[in-house]
């Protein structure tokens, strides 16, 4: 841990540099929240419509999205 003054670190909450998949999912999520709504059903529909799927390629269900976002955001 550096002790140099000043400590100015943009990223203090990350555990790793996001993967390309994580970046893609994050921007798709922002778009979905902006254009489709804030309900879980909106999210699943919006992501599937944009073909932004989980790494296994399967379309999202409410349960699979919950599990994956919990893994990513816990």
């Amino acid at each position: 841990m550096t002790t140099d003054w000043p400590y100015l670190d943009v990223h203090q909450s990350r555990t790793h540099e996001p993967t390309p998949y994580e970046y893609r999912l994050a921007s798709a999520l922002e778009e979905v929240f902006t254009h489709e709504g804030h309900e879980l059903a909106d999210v699943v529909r919006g992501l599937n419509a944009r073909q932004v799927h989980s790494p296994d390629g399967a379309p999202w269900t409410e349960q699979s999205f919950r599990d994956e976002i919990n893994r990513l955001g816990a």
Partner: protein
Amino acid sequence: MTTLTADHIYATGLRNQWHPVVPSRFVAPGAMRKVTVLGEEWLLFRRSDSTLSMLADRCPHRGAPLSLGKHLGDRVSCWYHGLEIETDGTVSSVPGLPGCNLEGKKLVRSLPVREVGGAVLAYFGDEEHPEPAPLTLPEPLTDPGTDSFLCYAEWNGPWRYAVENLLDPMHGAFLHHESHTMFDGDTTAKFRIRETGRGYFFEKTDQRGVNFDWVELCRTGVDWVDLSIPYPPSAGPGGPFGIVGMVCPVDENRTGVFFWRYRKVEGWQRDSWRFLYRTLIEKRHWEVLEQDRVMLEAMPADADQRENLYQHDLGVVRLRRMYRAEAEAQGAAQVPAQAPAPRH
């Protein structure tokens, strides 16, 4: 201990209260770290079981910095002549002279510490007030339905400017106009002060929930502010994000700022926010904070001596009066009783 004047206290931070020091992660288990707070040098020392202590960074033998010494697991040894100091400040051993009368004496000042929301807080009492003041933690950091991330940064400028900046919501509509959260709202406003049992609100009378529209200063053993800023729809469900802000007076010209960004979210909504925060939002928040840093670091040294204040500055004026009065009171209490004139 040297006598503290009101000016010194005003410049380096109020005594007899808690202040944030550094993020907890700055001192790993089994590690130690030198820190400057309120213009004084300290050593944070963490045992391998994670217990944290804070000692004056000054060996009671000849004054060498203990931070140059060795971590011995449950105590620190001074590098100069090997004195060993326990985490409560007691000299446990003088290796060069076993049985020396320094042994067993508590000769190093140690401060009460607590860790809160990922930050170290310490109580800085003066000689008359060594017992820690009661500490009530900010609710957003203790409420289980609220989730938060700490952002810590170090700025070159007086601690008061950092607090004043927070008691000045109107700067949001100008300084942060080109930002992801504070682009909206009126650029004219009327403000009022609303006293609370623990401090005061400084708020717009005619707009809420659009920009940075209100702030509450809270004095609950530690000084902190609470405020709320709307998120754009892209940030998902959960409404606005809040900030709990605290400031560490490092010395006259350096400040550590602690911003906990918080949001009332649970379940998948919480997970979504956390994911977006780490991946995309944290960087945007950082850019807003940098606008504050650039402005505050560029403020001239006599900025608060040559001003023309108007209605929007009432929150700042109230803050300064309060801090100045407290610094005066603390300084006056420090003046030693007049000793009788020496007789010859």
